[in-house]
């Protein structure tokens, strides 16, 4: 590669990396915790949720009795859909959509989050309980900003892919050598460079996967809108070509009692060997095109892509649409592959379900956060030189303070919100409450550390706070709900156990780092710093 091209790629890497850095950090940080979203939810609830991989047959629920019971409660089901995630247990939650019938009453067009007792089929309201896990989940694609946030996260992923490939290009020739270089005693920039290169190299496959799948999710709209060019701009037709027709028109009202739903559940259970339905949908109830849909999986150890789906037309009594998990076509297999990889949802290693894999993902994601921050620090240090004008240097320094303040205060704020989530009464757990606690606190902390204008201070005290608060998390959990870490383990409440362990692990690392941290030897005047770097003549100049 010519010298010019090398420098061009180098500059592209720097610019694309710096532009997305904070956004990407937030995505990876929140995403790392999102891997445990369900566990966080259960941890907050403190309810025993068996993480059994046992199959719950579709027939475990009497659907006809459920719809009867809803009608008895005064719900008009025409044009509404009912969604159940099979959980087993005494209480089964479900979601009832609003009626799509334009003539339906105001009350019938409202959606509802309900639950029923699996023996008496008594319907109850499911109180809204917002989980901090959902906040982190939404934050990892900036969905607090709605659609624009979603597209923004896709754009960040795209530029991440760009930064990743340019990074690979500039390091390619020396990648093996750089990987083994570790000079912790050298000057700051060298340390950041070594860490950035080595950890970046380890993370490449992981990061490439996330950059690509992230762009596919966030910017998938570009595929649909550009593809619609072949259909006179009709995006629906494009998706129909790709995924098959979906009839969204609501049929005429039919007499519900003339059609039974339970036989379809029975048919689902026997459709394919070892198929376990997970999501049941009763769609467009009481209409001519009423459907019974089941989506589920084979054992994840059996095959990587293990999802299957069948949709029955209830009135005609035939199969409308099906995805046989044993015979998946190429086109059908792409999105399941993407979601398996993106959600760390495969392999089923060890006794804790997919949590072993999620833990590995978590570490790789945290490592990526480190690569992002060290990249910013290299950028800062590389410009902290005598030949850079004073004004520009001050500006860079300020940018560095803000970046670090925003990024590093995220961890203590997350730890604090976990504690808050455990301490508040159930009724307080709303989206607004969590948003104001987390984002408000994050803003305050960021401003505080930014005003301090001292990266050492920011680093030390965010770590210390994270360590202390993180240690408190299992304690608070034990005191509030009685799920002490050992008891949760012995009771097989692995999801509660795993969150406590995760925080103990994080807090230990934070505190250990604080303990090992050395105060920088005062503020080295710029001249002496120059001299020193000349004295410790570098053996290897990475660029």
């Amino acid at each position, binding site marked *: 590669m010519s010298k010019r091209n090398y420098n*061009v790629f180098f500059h592209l890497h*720097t610019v694309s990396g710096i532009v997305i850095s904070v956004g990407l950090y937030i995505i990876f940080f929140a995403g790392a915790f999102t891997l445990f979203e369900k566990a966080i939810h259960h941890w907050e609830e403190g309810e025993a949720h068996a993480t059994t991989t046992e199959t719950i047959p579709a027939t475990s629920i009497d659907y006809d009795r459920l719809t009867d019971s809803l009608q008895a409660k005064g719900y008009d089901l025409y044009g509404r859909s009912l969604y159940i995630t099979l959980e087993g247990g005494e209480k089964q939650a479900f979601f009832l959509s609003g009626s799509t019938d334009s003539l339906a009453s105001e009350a019938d067009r409202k959606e509802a989050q309900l639950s029923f007792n699996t023996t008496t089929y008594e319907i109850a309201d499911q109180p809204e309980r917002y989980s901090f896990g959902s906040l982190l989940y939404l934050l990892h694609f900036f969905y607090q900003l709605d659609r624009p946030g979603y597209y923004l996260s896709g754009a960040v992923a795209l530029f991440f*892919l760009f930064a990743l490939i340019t990074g690979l290009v500039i390091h390619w020739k020396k990648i093996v050598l750089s990987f083994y270089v570790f000079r912790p005693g050298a000057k700051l920039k060298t340390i950041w460079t070594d860490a950035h290169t080595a950890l970046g190299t380890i993370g490449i496959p992981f990061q490439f996967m996330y950059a690509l799948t992230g762009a596919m999710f966030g910017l998938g709209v570009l595929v649909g809108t550009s*593809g619609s060019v072949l259909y006179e701009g009709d995006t629906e037709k494009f998706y129909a070509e790709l995924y098959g027709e979906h009839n969204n028109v609501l049929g005429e009202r039919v007499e519900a009692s003339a059609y039974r739903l339970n036989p379809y559940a029975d048919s689902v259970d026997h459709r394919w060997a070892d198929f376990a339905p997970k999501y049941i949908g009763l769609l467009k109830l009481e209409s001519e095109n009423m459907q019974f849909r089941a989506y589920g999986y084979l054992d994840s150890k059996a095959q990587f892509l293990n999802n299957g789906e069948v949709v029955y037309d209830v009135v005609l009594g035939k199969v409308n649409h099906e995805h046989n998990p044993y015979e998946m076509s190429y086109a059908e297999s*792409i999105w399941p592959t993407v979601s398996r990889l993106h959600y760390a949802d495969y392999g089923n290693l060890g006794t804790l379900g997919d949590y072993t894999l999620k833990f590995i993902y978590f570490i790789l994601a945290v490592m990526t956060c480190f690569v992002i921050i060290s990249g910013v620090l290299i950028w800062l240090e590389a*410009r902290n030189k005598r030949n850079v004008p004073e004004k520009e240097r001050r500006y860079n320094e300020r940018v560095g303070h803000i970046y670090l303040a925003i990024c590093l205060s995220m961890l203590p704020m997350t730890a604090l919100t976990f504690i808050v989530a455990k301490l508040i009464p159930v009724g307080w757990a709303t989206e607004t409450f969590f948003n104001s606690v987390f984002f408000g606190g994050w803003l305050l902390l960021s401003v505080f550390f930014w005003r301090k204008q001292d990266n050492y201070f920011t680093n030390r005290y965010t770590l210390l706070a994270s360590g202390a608060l993180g240690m408190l998390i299992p304690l608070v959990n034990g005191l509030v709900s009685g799920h002490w870490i050992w008891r949760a383990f012995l009771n097989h409440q692995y999801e509660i156990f795993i969150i406590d362990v995760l925080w103990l692990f994080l807090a230990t690392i934070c505190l250990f780092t604080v303990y090992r941290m050395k105060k920088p030897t005062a503020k080295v005047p710029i001249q002496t710093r120059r001299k020193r770097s000349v004295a410790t003549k570098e053996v290897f100049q990475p660029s």
Partner: protein
Amino acid sequence: MPANPKYLTASKRQRFAKASASILGGFLVAASFHLALAAWLPDRKNIFATYSFSLFLVWMGLMFIPYLMKNGWTCWLWYGSITLFFSVIIYLAESSTI
């Protein structure tokens, strides 16, 4: 360590030309290429399925080219003509099927 500025583009207009060719031009070429394939080849479903990820990979590859060229407008000329070429192909295919 920062990249040596003597190799980088200084002119604002050139920078704009390169950045726009990279992001917008790259997208147009990548998208029109895939759609031309879909328009002419029989297996449309599988091409669309591939398109859902290869759009980003091809686009990514095309993002680098303007920066390697001396003149950003030359790249726009290339990208513009290629897009036009694929668009004509799409148009011909579409109008022949109707």
